[in-house]
């Protein structure tokens, strides 16, 4: 039986690009029955416009649902709208959106983080309990940390990417955001599992009940996560939080991730290279604003993309095109892939002795709007989140206190396909401070 869900909450933070005042849901008896869920605007929703925060997809209405959206509908969720984001997921603040920036629910002069800033702000401001985001280099965990909520980036392959509009497909995953670990756990159980339409999706469903029993859990703390560039007040909050995990029975040890020295460069070379290929599909022929078919292909294509892509998207496509071009491939792309493998090996080495790696999610609290105007300084803010994407391991951000009244996030990273343990550690922390 189809029921109506009225979504009338005020959007104080510009969290939504498209909202449905009246959303429908089915009485399926599923775990999300009658719940309003927000979905990031790079996840395809049949009949609901999907823009990726870009003018180049203005007016695009997907003819099909992403796998995760099908799963939401089957679980009884009411999809209340599509959330704001950095254009194609390229950014750390949600300022790179063609629909204007989203603001932080805790302080309207600050950013919500990005690129899933709309999803995090919608949850943080109480408009919805849960939302879906995507995380290529921290795009779920960063806004979760900045908005004081919980966000999980799953293991690469645990959630189908079918219907996620691709930006960097060897790195990105769809994942849940919520106010509590329990909500994130519920949403994860709905979206995880196999899908023949995504050949990188494993048959590893997620059926877990969070447990705060972490006695004997081994937690490694990398020195690099507390190094240069990390605000000492943020570092102190996170160290206190790790102390709470010790109170709950966890054993801690220090560790080192030497590959962190070049992880960020490896990440940006990889994601821009993949973007330069993925975004070539936006040619104005099959979707989005139209091109003039009487002009020649390249002239029309060039003007179309020069006008409708934002500056950061253009910059990343150009960087990726350069990194893959003859004469530079060996210096940039090939080196980045070796670096990436070194990051993965560092994680595997640490995970021989430890169950969880803990540190800050972001090196600072939420920036002021406009504070990060230089592209490289914006990229550097991703230093603590990109390693998990390069290695493909799961990572969660859980709120752990405040600095200057702004939330701080504790990041907990686990072994491949051990989301359950990551969730338990986050749940134990949540119980310890409740």
């Amino acid at each position, binding site marked *: 039986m189809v029921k109506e869900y009225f979504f009338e909450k005020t959007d104080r933070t510009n969290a939504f690009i498209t909202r449905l005042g009246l959303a429908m849901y089915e009485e399926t008896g599923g775990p999300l029955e009658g719940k309003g869920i927000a979905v990031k605007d790079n996840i395809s929703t049949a009949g609901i416009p999907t823009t990726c925060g870009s003018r180049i997809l203005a007016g695009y209405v997907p*003819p099909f649902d992403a796998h995760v959206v099908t799963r939401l509908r089957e679980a009884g969720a009411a999809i209340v709208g599509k959330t704001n984001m950095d254009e194609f997921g390229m950014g750390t603040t949600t300022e790179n959106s063609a629909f204007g920036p989203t603001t932080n629910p805790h302080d309207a002069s600050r950013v919500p983080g990005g690129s899933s800033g709309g999803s995090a702000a919608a949850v943080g401001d109480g408009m919805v309990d849960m939302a879906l985001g995507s995380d290529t280099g921290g795009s779920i965990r960063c806004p979760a940390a900045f908005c004081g909520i919980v966000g999980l980036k799953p293991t690469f392959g645990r959630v189908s990417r079918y219907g996620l509009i691709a930006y960097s497909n060897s790195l990105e995953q769809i994942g849940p955001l919520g106010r509590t670990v329990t909500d994130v756990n519920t949403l994860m159980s709905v979206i995880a599992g196999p899908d023949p339409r995504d050949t990188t999706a494993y048959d590893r469903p997620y059926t877990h009940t969070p447990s705060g029993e972490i006695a004997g859990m081994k937690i490694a703390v990398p020195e690099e996560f507390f190094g240069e560039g990390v605000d000492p007040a943020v570092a102190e909050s996170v160290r206190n939080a790790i102390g709470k995990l010790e109170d709950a029975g966890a054993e801690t040890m220090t560790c080192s991730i030497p590959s962190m020295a070049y992880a960020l460069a490896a990440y940006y070379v990889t994601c821009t290279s993949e973007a330069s290929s993925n975004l070539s599909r936006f040619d104005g*022929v099959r979707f989005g604003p139209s091109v003039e078919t009487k002009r*020649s292909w*390249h002239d029309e294509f*060039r003007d179309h993309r020069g*006008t409708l892509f934002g500056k950061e998207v253009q910059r990343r496509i150009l960087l990726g095109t350069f990194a893959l071009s003859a004469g530079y491939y060996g210096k940039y792309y090939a080196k980045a892939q070796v670096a990436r493998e070194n990051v993965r090996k560092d994680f595997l080495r640490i995970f021989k002795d430890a169950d969880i790696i803990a540190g800050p999610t972001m090196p600072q609290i939420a920036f002021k709007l406009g504070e990060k105007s230089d*592209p490289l300084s914006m990229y550097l803010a991703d230093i603590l989140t990109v390693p998990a994407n390069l290695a493909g391991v799961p990572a969660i951000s859980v709120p752990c206190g405040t600095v200057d009244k702004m939330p701080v996030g504790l990041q907990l990273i686990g072994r491949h396909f051990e989301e359950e343990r990551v969730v338990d550690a986050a749940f134990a922390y949540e119980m310890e401070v409740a």
Partner: protein
Amino acid sequence: MVLENDVEGIAKLADIHIQKEELGEFTSQFNHILEYFDILDTVSDGEEGKADLVNVLREDVVTPSLTQEAACANAHETEDGHIRAPRVM
């Protein structure tokens, strides 16, 4: 170090028209970022990842998919169920 000329050439390869007056800023940001990427020169020779990958294959069986009408619904110019594109030559 890349020059404005180089950036213009890359933009042409990428099919993105960059306004002349924006080339200077793009070039300086480019150099700033590439200088940072130089840290990859310190990566000692190693191997690219070869995770335990297996090819995922299936029989090529026709299954239900988008109708021609749905596939063309977002295109602006269609003709007989096909999508019109700009001329290539």
